[in-house]
Every structure is written in structure tokens, then in C-alpha cells.
């Protein structure tokens, strides 16, 4: 059974995995599917992001003032860390974080939640009032984009949107032509001393730059199929003019993000 093609089953398993009750052999089987299929990974990441929102739900309660006092006392007795600013050390630290992410990638718990939170929900046209209306509009937009894309033999599409779910950049990728086409559809325009930079977020690895966006409405970038193929999420960050080297990762805030979908060909 190919769960990538059985959306109901995939949804059920992904939700169970994200809440933490799909374990043992069943969990490992799902992880194996996830390594082979971007669709499976995207669904799991979507549910992990949804579940992680549970952290925001408990109603705030005041702890006793003693808690801060005890923290403060502990800080004073902790050995003083030397602030490490050497570039070699910074690189080593970055590799350590990346390694840790790779090791923890498919285990439930802390590391997963931190990686999963960025899945893009494909989002709505700006004037939709209710979340339900937006949901329907997302589906329509997605479908239209996929149809257009398959007519042009484009194989991958993404709708990148902001925190309020307003679509801002449409992305298509033609692996044969090695061409990424970005289209600005929202009203956002970066300041003169800033650039937007596009990143691929492959699972378990550091973000990889796909290029810096110029200020035109339609932007074409070159990308190898390997850079796009197994990536479930694309993101756009706000960087200094000209962007930053890929190895540094995004230094500015992520403004837009979205799931990468394959068109039906």
C-alpha cells in the first residue's frame, strides 16, 4: 500500500505520529515512508506544527515569586561561560546543531517539535473572513496553480504566505529547465537596503539558499533538481541587500513560507 497515495490513511498516521502515539514498528514504518516521499514528510510536518500549538493553549498562571529568586541564585553560582566569538567555533557549533537535528529528526519530542513548526499551510486570498473560507480558497488556489503548472510541464509548486495566511509569492519549478520562477502576488516590498532570499528547508539539515530575489514582479532563478526534490518547505527571509551566504543560514526573519507540492503529471 502506497500511503503517499492514500491521503486519509496518511492523515490518520501523521496525526497519531505528531501527538506521539504512533510508536515501535508502526512509527518506524512511517519514518521509512517519510524518507522516500516528500508528500509523507509534508503531512507529518504539518501535523507536528499543529500539535506544537498546544504549547500555547494552557491559560497562564502566576508562579510564586520564589521561583525567580531561585533562578537568580543559581545563575550566580554557575561557572561563567566565556563568550565564544571565533568563526571556527561558531561553525563547529552550527554543525553540532545540524547533527543533533539529524539524529533527532524522526524521534518524537523536543527536536521534532522545533523542526516541524515551519510547515506552510497553503493560504488564502487576502479578503477571506473566516478560516473556513480561507481553507476553501487555499484549496482552489492550490488546484489552479497545479493545473497551470502541469500544463506548462512544471513539476513543483508552492504558495508562500505570511503569518496571517496572506499569499505573497507563488513559486514554480521546472526540473528539466532547472528553472525556479517566483511571482510576487502580495503587496510586500522590501526596503531599499534589504533583499528577500529564498531558502529550501530539507529535513534534518540546515536551510540552503536558492537565491536572492530581485525587485521585479517575476523572478527567475536557476536550481538543480536535487536542491528542490526532497524538500518539503520553502521559506523567504529578509536579509541585508544582496543576501547572505548559504552556509550562514537565514539571518533575518522568515517572512513567508509554504509547502512544496508536486503537480500531477
Amino acid at each position, binding site marked *: 500500500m502506497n500511503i503517499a497515495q492514500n491521503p486519509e490513511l496518511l*492523515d*490518520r498516521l501523521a*496525526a*497519531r505520529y505528531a*501527538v*506521539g*502515539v504512533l*510508536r515501535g514498528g508502526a512509527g518506524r514504518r512511517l519514518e521509512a515512508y517519510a524518507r522516500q516521499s516528500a508528500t509523507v514528510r509534508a503531512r507529518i510536518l504539518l501535523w507536528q506544527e*499543529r*500539535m*506544537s*500549538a*498546544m*504549547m*500555547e*493553549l*494552557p*491559560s*497562564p*498562571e*502566576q*508562579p510564586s515569586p520564589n*521561583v*525567580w529568586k*531561585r*533562578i537568580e541564585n*543559581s*545563575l550566580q553560582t554557575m561557572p*561563567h*561561560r566565556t*563568550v565564544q566569538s571565533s568563526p571556527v567555533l561558531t561553525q563547529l*557549533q552550527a554543525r553540532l*546543531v545540524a547533527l543533533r537535528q539529524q539524529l533527532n529528526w524522526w524521534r518524537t*519530542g*523536543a527536536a521534532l*517539535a*522545533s*523542526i*516541524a*513548526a*515551519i510547515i506552510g*499551510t497553503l*493560504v488564502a486570498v487576502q479578503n477571506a473572513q473566516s*478560516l*473556513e473560507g*480561507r*481553507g476553501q480558497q*487555499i*484549496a482552489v488556489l492550490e488546484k489552479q496553480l497545479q493545473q497551470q503548472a502541469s500544463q506548462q510541464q512544471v513539476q513543483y509548486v508552492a504558495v508562500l504566505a505570511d*503569518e*496571517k*495566511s496572506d499569499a505573497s509569492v507563488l513559486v514554480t519549478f521546472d526540473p528539466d529547465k532547472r528553472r525556479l520562477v517566483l511571482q510576487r502576488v502580495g503587496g510586500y516590498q522590501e526596503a531599499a537596503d534589504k533583499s528577500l532570499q529564498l531558502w529550501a*528547508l530539507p529535513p534534518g539539515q540546515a*536551510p540552503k539558499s536558492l537565491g536572492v530575489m530581485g525587485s521585479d514582479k517575476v523572478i527567475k532563478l536557476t536550481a538543480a533538481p536535487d536542491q528542490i526534490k526532497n524538500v518539503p518547505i520553502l*521559506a523567504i*527571509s529578509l536579509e541585508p541587500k544582496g543576501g547572505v551566504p548559504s552556509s550562514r*543560514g*537565514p539571518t533575518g*526573519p*522568515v517572512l513567508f513560507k509554504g509547502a512544496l507540492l508536486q503537480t500531477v503529471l
Partner: protein
Amino acid sequence: MKSAITDAQLIACLDRIAQQDSAALRELYDATSSKLYAVAMRVVSNTEHAEDVLQEAYLTIWRVAGDYKAPLSPPMVWLGVIVRSRGLDFLRRRTAERALQGQPMDDALADTLAAEQDTPMDTHEASEQAWALHECLRKIESKQRQVVTMAYFRDLSHSELAHQLSLPLGTVKTWMRRGLDQLRTCMNRFA
């Protein structure tokens, strides 16, 4: 809807904490401790224990703030996960200590499904995702909702849930399945 400024302030705060600015840790504490205390309570169920967990969590944050990567996760989720980890450590240590001393498992840790208060959510600071989840969870029957949230906050399997709630495994699995089915239908409507 979540204010972008609040998130950005937390991110800037974490950055300063990574530079060993203890005033920044105080700021983070003032801004987040009541929310994180509530998370701690969901993990360990006991006021005194939750305070211990909260203290451990902020000391962890002091040590690892430099690991936080803003593009990968919203700050409150990253912080909440740290609280949950320290809470789970606390529960495991306590269970181990009691086992070594030949004592039965804590009453405080053995749960019953209590009647929950339906507290309205403060939507000003909540993210859209959290609001959607809250709305969808509200629609699920109480017992089913509680096994779902307990499984998440305490990182429990079906059988661990059944043990802590003193319920048959089959019952827990049924409630979980129904709760998740309803949650999926509702959340998938929000896309």
C-alpha cells in the same frame, strides 16, 4: 492573532540571553513565566513540582538560548518544549527514586480524567494555529480531548496512558482514535 512584535521581542531576548545577558533572562521570565508555568502544570500536575520544573527550564534556557533558530520554530513553542522536557525528566527521576525506595507510584502522577474548566483563550497573543487548535479541541468530547492532550504534554504511549489513568488499553485507544478523527476533520477544514 499573534503580534509579530511580541515574537520578534522574544527572539531578540533569546539572542541577548545567548550573549549571557542576565537582564535579558529576567525580561524573558517576566514575559513568559506565567504561560510556561501553565505548561509545566500540564506535565507534572502539581504546583510545587511545577515550580521546580519551571526553575530548571529557565536555567536550561540560559544555557541553550544560542541553539534557538527562529526560522525553525516560534519562540513559545521552543520554550514550551524545553519546559516539557524538564517536566518529563522530573517525572522520570521521581518514579525512579520511589521505585528504589520501594514506594508505590505517586498519587500526584496517577491521573484521573477530571472535569475541565472551559477557559476562554486570550486571542490577542495566540497564533492562528493555536486558535484553530483550541477551537477544534473544544468541540471534542472531554474524555477524548483529555487523552489527546495528555499524550502530547506528557509524551505518553497508549499503554502508558492506560496505566496512568487506570483504564483498559482498548478504551484509551478508542477515545484517542475518536478524538483524533474529530480533530483531523476540524483542522483540515481550516487547512
